[in-house]
């Protein structure tokens, strides 16, 4: 448990808390909250991890057991091989990091152009990008699917290719807006100085703008990965081939014919990477969420 932090004045005053009665209430509430939250938010994860160690009979036994009677780690390896989790995990990573790369390259370039190079019609383009934030994503699912099925002009079918997942992620008005606002705050004089030294726009972007933008790039990167990792409907539509499916879709479609303890073990394995990722990057994720997450 963390030590008490210096606390700004909130609803309840320090004097109130320091009375014996206040203390009693405070500690009761604290214990209840910590216990209750652990149970509600961590309990299911505990159930997942231990459920994967139980036998089929024990998983569906009533009343349920708290601790597996005869822990069987072999269920995990069974889940890994039976559901082909290696393949699914690889696909998910492949989609997530491909999307991350494309978003970093193209959204940063676009935001830089709109913020610093100021092309003709730049404001109109930005406006049209931001307008897409108002369109509920579910509305466009059908025409987007048809676009992937038969790409205009080129007449390519992107179904079952990673491009079907990668390309649409670049059209992220929120990222571009976030990046543009950050780039706007970089002083013009710095860029002018670079231009006098003979740096072209690409050079300026690489050696001045990008190094100054690390925090915002981190936020964009984290959300790019998390979004692909969590997406369900779109990959279900565009990656029907089981060999190309990411975790979410693969586990769901394979879950029916497999014993439950194996499915639970698979879910535990599928959750582990995002949980670890979150624990490592929690500070950036939370600050990104509260700083940029609201203004759209």
């Amino acid at each position: 448990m963390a030590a008490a932090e210096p606390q700004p004045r909130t609803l309840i005053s320090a004097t109130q808390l320091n009375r014996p009665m206040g203390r009693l209430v405070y500690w009761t509430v604290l214990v209840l909250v910590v216990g209750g939250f652990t149970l509600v938010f961590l309990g299911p994860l505990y159930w997942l991890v231990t459920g994967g160690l139980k036998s089929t009979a024990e998983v569906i036994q009533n009343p349920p057991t708290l601790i597996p009677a005869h822990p069987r780690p072999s269920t995990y390896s069974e889940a890994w091989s039976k559901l082909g989790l290696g393949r699914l995990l690889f696909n998910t990573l492949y989609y997530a990091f491909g999307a991350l790369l494309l978003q970093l390259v193209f959204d940063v370039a676009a935001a830089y152009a709109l913020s610093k190079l100021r092309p003709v019609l730049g404001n109109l383009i930005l406006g049209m990008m931001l307008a897409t934030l108002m369109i509920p994503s579910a509305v466009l699912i059908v025409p987007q699917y048809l676009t992937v099925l038969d790409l205009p002009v080129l007449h390519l079918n992107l179904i079952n290719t990673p491009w079907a997942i990668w390309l649409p992620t670049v059209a992220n008005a929120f990222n571009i807006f976030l990046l543009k606002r950050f780039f706007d705050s970089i002083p013009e004089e710095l860029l002018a100085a670079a231009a006098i030294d003979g740096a072209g726009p690409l050079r300026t972007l690489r050696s001045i703008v990008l190094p100054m933008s690390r925090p915002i790039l981190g936020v964009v990167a984290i959300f790019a990965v998390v979004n692909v990792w969590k997406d369900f409907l779109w990959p279900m539509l565009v990656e029907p081939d089981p060999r190309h499916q990411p975790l979410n879709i693969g586990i769901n479609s394979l879950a029916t014919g497999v014993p439950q303890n194996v499915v639970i073990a698979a879910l535990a394995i599928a959750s582990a990477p995002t949980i670890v990722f979150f624990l490592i990057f929690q500070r950036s994720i939370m600050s990104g969420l509260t700083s940029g997450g609201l203004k759209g």
Partner: protein
Amino acid sequence: MAAITASRARGRPRTAARSRRGLKLRQNLTAHAFLFGALVSFGLFTWYPMVREVVMSFQRTKRGRTSWVGLDNLRRIVHDPAFWHAWGNTLRFTLLALVLGFALPFLIAVLLNELRHARAYLRVLVYLPVMLPPVAGVLLFKYCYDPNYGLFDHLLRALHLPTSAWLNSPGSAMLSVVIAATWMNMGGATLIYLAALQGIPGELYEAAELDGAGLLRKVWHVTIPQTRLILSLLLLLQLVATMQVFVEPYLLTGGDGPQDSTLTVVNLVYQYAFNFGNYGSAAALGLVMLLVLAGFSALYVRLSRAED
């Protein structure tokens, strides 16, 4: 940049205009080269589909032949009883989700803001489910809801409370979906509220206390007014998001549930398009939804401008 152009213009007055125009053109070309990737993606995946959505809603495709049918698609979907079902369910989901998913994070945030210990731990806990892959969260709940060996019924029985059929009865299926969705998604809202609460100046509470305000009155007269803008922004954002709910009902109940009790609008769009291959109806329904949500979105934009 401007300085360079100017000195050049002084040096060679005759060609100044042309060279400036040339420079401008080159700059524009460079800028558009930087924009290229994003423009392609926006063009292909949001701008063009938007146009196509509108066009498709007036068309019907039969055996590979596309014809204009005017408002026929709209007429058809309105006469489909599933349309009213889906809207009714979606509104029910939205209302339930707002009561749970809007009020609960606020209460939790107020509570967490008062605690002086274990704050980092509690913050991480609340956000943990948001990071789970949806299939893990949803299947987890599916097992907990199971009428034979589910954890929830077991808990209710242990507390001598009546058990529930959860997902298997039309009366409780939607509520079960909402509970699962709330657990999975409320972390984000909680943290945003928490940040907003931390921005409230403490003197306001002190002033309220001098006026003799108790706990509830302080919440009512200080906390809520001070976070009103964030509250209303998140309310709108959640309205727009919850009305588009798809994954939870789809995974928990196969998309429609007992007697269509969890069939939502997006599920119906999905069924029209991908089960029946009726893109025209799907597009028409999508547009109806766009119109309904556009009002909320416009309000959101106005409010968030006001905040800036």
